């Protein structure tokens, strides 16, 4: 097994034969089929979308801190009421912030950017199995971005076909609210555009996931057995499987809702509803059906948004602590367990939804048990750091923040997994706190680390570490000031998605706290410009680096920085696992690359020997 695909090898040789053949700017950098360019395209696109999503979030935060006041800068750009945020504009902000962050940032930055860039490099392949499909997977993001942009409802001239506000059904888009155009100002054409955008994102993800699975199974370099793969690759592999099995359900549900809205089908809307004085509905749908279908995808999607970051952080922590990953196989099995259990926990989003209460108990047990593999992973990260020789750079700091924040996000999850407690905290800010600790606190800090760690491989230059440390410090402080108090808001019973919570006397006293949180969010938002500036400047002026600036072990560090077309100068042969840091087999250095041939060791590229004798 695990020899490179012969057809690809031939293509590889052909490519070398025409090495200096000029393929033109457009084909090289725009409609490129090279996984590295596609990965960088995904990365730049998602960083821009991160700023868009963040700007939308600042709109939300402004309204919660200074309700009904004119928002500086931003308000005059979008607000129809002279800079004031209207309730339907607020629900649009909530909806589109989540949609942009989830579908245009987190999922594509992990699977799209890092998946594309790292999979062929880390398994020693010269490109993806299906390069054209890969290119399409990037370019299908753009129709999605266009559809979401229209769904914002703020672009002049696009407010056609009865659209008088942006999509405002929440990112969960529950019908009946979104099934009937009269139910909300944003439930007209804007919701249709939103659903189309969702479909395009799904097509993009599906093309990626098919490609990743095929590439990882078929195109590993000689000697790269499954249990010699870096945890990043394991995470990408498991994520691709999750996506391939879960996504069709969401796509089907999206089409059902589109058909319901456009062609008069009735899947979700029951008969006899009089919504906003419109004619009574006909048919016999069931609103809970959407929730089941939506969460059947969207709960596994939470792991799609987390697992790749877990894998990347494992790689980076091992390198920055100069120590093998503690418990490689338990790490793999935990990820597999999270993915497997991830398919049977979706009902925990629906404890108070009116589904059969008996199901609440089943879903509670499965949900609480999914904390187990997460706990095992956390302990293993701590074990990896223990007695290491830590390199205190921004990569390590971001990875440490990942572990620290993931602990908070994981522990707060137990509260809402417990059905009786969830009765109280469901749909309050406790939930908002929880998923921001997982998606921002864990995933985005992992992404920040990953950007800096693999930047030299992308561009042949290093990012400025001091600037990254400043960025990290400000982001970490801003993040915790913004999101930790949300736990307390949740305990105080403040519901989500309220344009003006202070209408309710029991929430009035929370206004000062919300103002502090908003200033934390502003700090965090502006800190991202440091990252962007560092990223852009370092592409051209960063310190040049060699093949392996971090003294890391993986196959990607054998290739030139940046790797040329076909990645490797010669097909790498893998002799061992990727985490042989501090190995006693070598005297003069503390790392052994996967390709190093050591005379002392009894090693072969054959699959039989394990990465190390005492692994478990």
């Amino acid at each position: 097994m695990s020899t490179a695909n012969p057809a690809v090898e031939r293509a590889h040789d052909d490519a070398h034969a025409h090495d200096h053949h000029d393929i033109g700017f457009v084909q090289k950098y725009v409609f490129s089929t090279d996984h590295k360019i596609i990965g960088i395209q995904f990365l730049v696109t998602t960083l821009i979308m991160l700023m868009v999503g963040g700007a939308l979030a600042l709109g939300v935060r402004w309204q919660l801190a200074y309700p009904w006041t004119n928002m500086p800068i931003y308000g005059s750009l979008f607000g129809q009421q002279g800079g004031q945020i209207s309730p339907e504009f607020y629900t649009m902000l909530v909806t589109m912030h989540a949609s942009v962050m989830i579908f245009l940032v987190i999922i594509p930055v992990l699977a799209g950017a890092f998946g594309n860039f790292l999979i062929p490099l880390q398994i020693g392949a010269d490109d993806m199995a299906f390069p054209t499909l890969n290119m399409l997977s990037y370019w299908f993001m753009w129709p999605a971005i266009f559809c979401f942009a229209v769904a914002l409802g703020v672009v002049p001239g696009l407010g056609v076909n009865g659209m008088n506000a942006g999509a405002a059904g929440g990112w969960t888009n529950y019908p009946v609210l979104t099934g009937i155009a009269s139910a909300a100002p944003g439930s007209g054409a804007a919701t249709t555009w939103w659903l189309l955008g969702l479909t395009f994102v799904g097509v993009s993800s599906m093309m990626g996931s098919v490609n990743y699975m095929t590439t990882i199974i078929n195109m590993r370099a000689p000697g790269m057995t499954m249990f010699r793969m870096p945890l990043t690759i394991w995470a990408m592999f498991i994520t691709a499987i999750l996506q391939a099995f879960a996504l069709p359900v969401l796509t089907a549900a999206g089409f059902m809702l589109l058909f319901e809205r456009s062609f008069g089908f009735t899947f979700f809307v029951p008969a006899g509803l009089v919504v906003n004085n419109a004619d009574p509905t006909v048919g016999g749908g069931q609103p809970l059906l959407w929730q089941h279908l939506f969460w059947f995808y969207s709960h596994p999607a939470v792991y799609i948004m987390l697992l790749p970051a877990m894998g990347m952080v494992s790689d980076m922590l091992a390198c920055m602590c100069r120590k093998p990953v503690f418990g490689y196989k338990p790490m793999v099995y935990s990820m597999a367990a999270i993915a497997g259990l991830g398919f049977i926990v979706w009902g925990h989003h629906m404890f108070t939804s009116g589904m059969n209460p008996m199901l609440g108990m089943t879903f509670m047990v499965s949900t609480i048990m999914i904390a187990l593999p997460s706990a095992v992973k956390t302990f293993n990260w701590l074990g990896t750091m223990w007695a290491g020789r830590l390199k205190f750079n921004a990569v390590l700091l971001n990875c440490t923040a990942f572990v620290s924040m993931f602990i908070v996000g994981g522990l707060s999850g137990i509260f809402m997994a417990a059905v009786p407690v969830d009765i109280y905290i469901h749909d309050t800010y406790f939930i908002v706190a929880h998923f921001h600790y997982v998606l921002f606190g864990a995933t985005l800090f992992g992404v920040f680390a990953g950007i800096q760690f693999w930047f030299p491989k992308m561009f042949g230059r290093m990012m400025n570490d001091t600037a990254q440390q400043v960025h990290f410090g400000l982001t970490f402080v801003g993040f915790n000031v913004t999101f930790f108090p949300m736990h307390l808001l949740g305990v105080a019973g403040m519901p989500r998605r309220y344009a003006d919570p202070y209408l309710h006397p029991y929430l009035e006293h929370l206004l000062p706290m919300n103002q502090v949180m908003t200033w934390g969010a502003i700090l965090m938002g502006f800190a991202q410009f440091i990252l962007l500036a560092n990223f852009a400047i370092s592409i051209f002026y960063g310190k040049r680096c060699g093949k392996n600036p971090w003294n890391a072990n993986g196959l990607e560090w054998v290739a030139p920085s940046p790797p040329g077309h076909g990645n490797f100068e010669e097909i790498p042969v893998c002799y061992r696992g990727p985490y042989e840091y501090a190995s006693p087999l070598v005297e003069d250095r503390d790392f052994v690359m996967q390709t190093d041939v050591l005379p002392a060791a009894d090693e072969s590229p054959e699959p039989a020997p394990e990465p190390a004798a005492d692994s478990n």
Partner: protein
Amino acid sequence: MKYFWVFFFAVFPLAVLGLCFAAPSMNWWFPYGNPAMTPLGQQIDGLFYLILGITGATFVGTQIALVYVLWRGAVDTEGKAHFSHGSHELEVIWTIVPAGILLFIALYQMDVWANYRIKANFPSGLVAAGEEGGHAEFSGPIAEVTARQFEWRIRYPSPDRVFHNEREVREWLRNPQPDDLHTVNDLHSPTQEPVMIYLRTEDVQHSFFVPELRVKQDAVPGLVIPIWWQALKPDEYEWTCTELCGWGHYKMKARVVAEPAEDYEAFLESLRESQFDDGFQTASAE
């Protein structure tokens, strides 16, 4: 600089703990700093504190471990790192111990949920004889609550109406009666005894949430869902919507008034008088 970052990661858990310990005295805790106003809510609070204790201890332990390994990493710079790929014993320990704790948390929650949501476990008086778990002294629902954008409509059965069984309740839910009493955004209920309402919606999803009573249930188009609680103290409890229902989601403000049984009956009588008062003065009224 590295000691600064070790300190930085040590400040975070301390700040979090400080904030959490200060929260109740700063009124950043349960609404009005009060315990739940229902027995079931108090059980929910108890489970919340149980989980808070377990997760809090885990948080402190793991954060101490994290800061410790960072500090060790900052101090130890000589030579190579400890070369180890893991420990089977440790993996077994830190799989089995959390598994036991998590399973305990899960199983310990079951009863409260069953009492809250499974109808056969509802208190006596809320389930009619003939049903599973039913009793002869059936009192029926106090009201039907219908959510709509953006208000709550409440329909009480006439004080004269007596429900004998579930069939009569279903009959009443299907067919509004001329002697029914109506209010908007103002639900009155007696204290001390368990009361039940039926929740439905006229348009989109809403959610019935009374924070101080720890009661929450979505209103789903096409479904009629029973909810029960037992208010311990006469008071006005704020009642909100927690399922996004359109632009006015935030303003579905209402109240649940819990009052002693005699006040409740007096309220229904005065409601009936005002609702059926046609303003016509009869001669005998002189």
